[in-house]
């Protein structure tokens, strides 16, 4: 298998931005732009990630550039950390590979009024309670079951559907990206196989890099923004990372089969089959968009139900209601999605399909699509790091609108393959190493834990420093994990 380090020309735009000129490869319609410092760029050059940036630059109707964030690494089709905006008026395509199998994989952050001193004496009990209540790991069903009619509403309405069942509040909906609702969703476009695959998985964590963490706010970098979000030093927060589970994976699978003949039909030449696409306004494109947006609703409901079970666990351990503990949702972001957004292109406002695969929306202060409560500070951006070091809260900045279609990074980015990470952890008990750092970890699979240890990831502090320097987003708070639940 071809996995040669990238040998192409890279032009330095500034200290945190690099260009792959469109002359690099036949078929590139725009340049590739990578936000990275020297050290992160060297890491990105070691596998096929930069080649994938160049491949995405070949997609019809791409606008501006094929972009990559500093947490870039090799994916399938698109790189992880990839951003691609296409203009449907210019024959722009929609590509399921630009969203990924885990449609609307994302992260949410829940605040509490608890401090580290309140929680540490009961941390083991709390983590055990969370592990008992939060279904995780391969093949694990959840406690929430939806009949066909209910599933239809869930897929069509998103987490608002959960309001009437007392599983969500208006505050939760307001603090979910896009209010948890995409108006192109059409559950009839979600196959019965996809619905069956996800039927008992809403409210389950999954496996791989998905997690639930109890975190302590370690340092505040922007006290005003932190105060607006209800964050303070030494505070306990909970971060939840999961997506659309089997339902979303199957929606992507079904769409890629449906798109198999589209490149020939629409005369699109693709450098990688995984970039299968169709014009956004074609029947194949519209069918995918309707199913993808329904799967995005499922993902938001999944994270909402995971948060609900988390609130129940805290209430049980601390003998207070979640409302008394003020366990409010700070914000929920998607990092695998395509959204139809308005952006300025050559001085004109245009509506574009912005694919974000391992990248997060980061709208600046005053943007119409962020909640009123955050208008003055910009959209909160939740950045998970790794389970041994740190995670971050950022806010979107104006530079994101100018440079990256309102986008920033999504995490630390993997550095080692899972095989290499597991080999490095051979003979070690990662849960015991974490315990020595004061972090209690519970996992459905110890092997899974070994593949996810800190050495497998880049340093998230370095990644967020780059997006801040590039003007895409700004640091607000850093959190350190003290409790980890993994699949």
């Amino acid at each position, binding site marked *: 298998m071809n996995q040669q380090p990238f040998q192409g020309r890279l032009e330095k735009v500034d200290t945190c931005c690099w260009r792959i000129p469109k002359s690099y490869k036949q078929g590139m319609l725009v340049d590739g732009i990578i936000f990275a410092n020297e050290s992160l760029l060297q890491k990105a050059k070691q596998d096929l990630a930069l080649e994938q940036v160049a491949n995405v630059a070949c997609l019809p109707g791409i606008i501006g550039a094929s972009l990559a964030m500093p947490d870039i690494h090799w994916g399938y089709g698109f790189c992880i950390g990839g951003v691609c905006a296409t203009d449907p008026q210019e024959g722009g395509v929609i590509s399921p590979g630009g969203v990924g199998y885990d449609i609307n994989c994302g992260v949410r952050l829940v605040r509490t009024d608890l401090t580290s001193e309140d929680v540490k004496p009961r941390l083991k009990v709390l983590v055990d309670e969370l592990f008992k209540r939060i279904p995780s790991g*391969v093949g694990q069903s959840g406690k929430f079951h939806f009949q066909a009619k209910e599933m239809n509403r869930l897929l069509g309405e998103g987490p608002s559907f959960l309001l009437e069942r007392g599983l969500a509040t208006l505050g939760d909906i307001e603090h979910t990206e896009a209010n948890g609702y995409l108006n192109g969703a059409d559950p009839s476009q979600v196959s019965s196989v996809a619905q069956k695959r996800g039927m008992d998985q809403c409210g389950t964590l999954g496996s*791989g890099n998905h997690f639930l963490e109890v975190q302590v706010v370690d340092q505040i970098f922007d006290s005003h923004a932190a105060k607006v979000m209800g964050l303070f030093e030494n505070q306990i927060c909970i971060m939840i990372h999961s997506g659309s589970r089997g339902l979303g994976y199957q929606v992507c699978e079904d769409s890629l089969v449906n798109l198999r003949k589209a490149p020939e039909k629409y005369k699109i030449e693709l450098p990688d089959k995984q970039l299968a696409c169709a014009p956004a306004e074609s029947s194949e494109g519209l069918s995918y968009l309707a199913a993808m947006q329904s799967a995005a609703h499922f993902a938001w409901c999944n994270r909402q139900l995971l948060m609900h079970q988390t609130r129940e666990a805290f209430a049980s351990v601390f003998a207070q209601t979640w409302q008394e503990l003020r366990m409010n949702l700070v914000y929920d972001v998607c990092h695998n999605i395509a959204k139809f957004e308005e952006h300025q292109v050559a001085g004109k406002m245009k509506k574009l399909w912005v694919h974000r695969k391992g990248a997060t929306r980061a709208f600046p202060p005053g943007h119409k699509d962020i909640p009123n409560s955050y208008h003055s500070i910009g959209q909160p951006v939740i950045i998970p790091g790794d389970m041994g070091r740190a995670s971050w809260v950022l806010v979107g900045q104006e530079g994101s609108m100018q440079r990256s279609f309102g986008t920033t990074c999504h995490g630390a980015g993997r550095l080692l393959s899972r095989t290499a990470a597991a080999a490095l952890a051979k003979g070690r008990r990662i849960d015991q190493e974490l315990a020595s750092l004061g972090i209690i970890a519970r996992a459905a699979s110890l092997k899974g834990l070994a593949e996810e240890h800190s050495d497998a990831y880049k340093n998230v502090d370095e990644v967020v420093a780059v997006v801040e320097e590039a003007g895409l987003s700004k640091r607000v708070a850093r959190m350190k994990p003290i409790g980890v639940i993994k699949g």
Partner: protein
Amino acid sequence: MFEFFEHTADLGFRIQSPSKEQLFEEAAQALFAAICSNPELILPSVQLTLTLHESSTELLLRDWLALLLTTFESDKIIFSSFIVTFDGDQLNAIVMGEPFQPKKHGRNHEVKAITYHQLVYQENESGFLAEIIVDI
């Protein structure tokens, strides 16, 4: 014979087999070895018959694994035994396994999908070679 190979975020398997039928059977074994940690404990107590049609053998191999994955996730049956035959472009398979029991079979990776990325299927001097990357 199969082996896993490295991919930064995901997982690949490489299968080398003397016949096309055996390649498809061993690819299925690789898939379930990725999903559970004790595939040798899976008993053949449930039997299903599966058929698929696709003119490209490369895509047929991917579709075969995708169908097994979907069946595992939807019906919660984990498989260990596969008999594959071909009739032109059609694959006919008898697959055997049992209901998934995490404690018995062990949890390994949650395989989300069988990707098309760098999919390889070719004949070589030893028979047939395939490389498949799965999303985990």
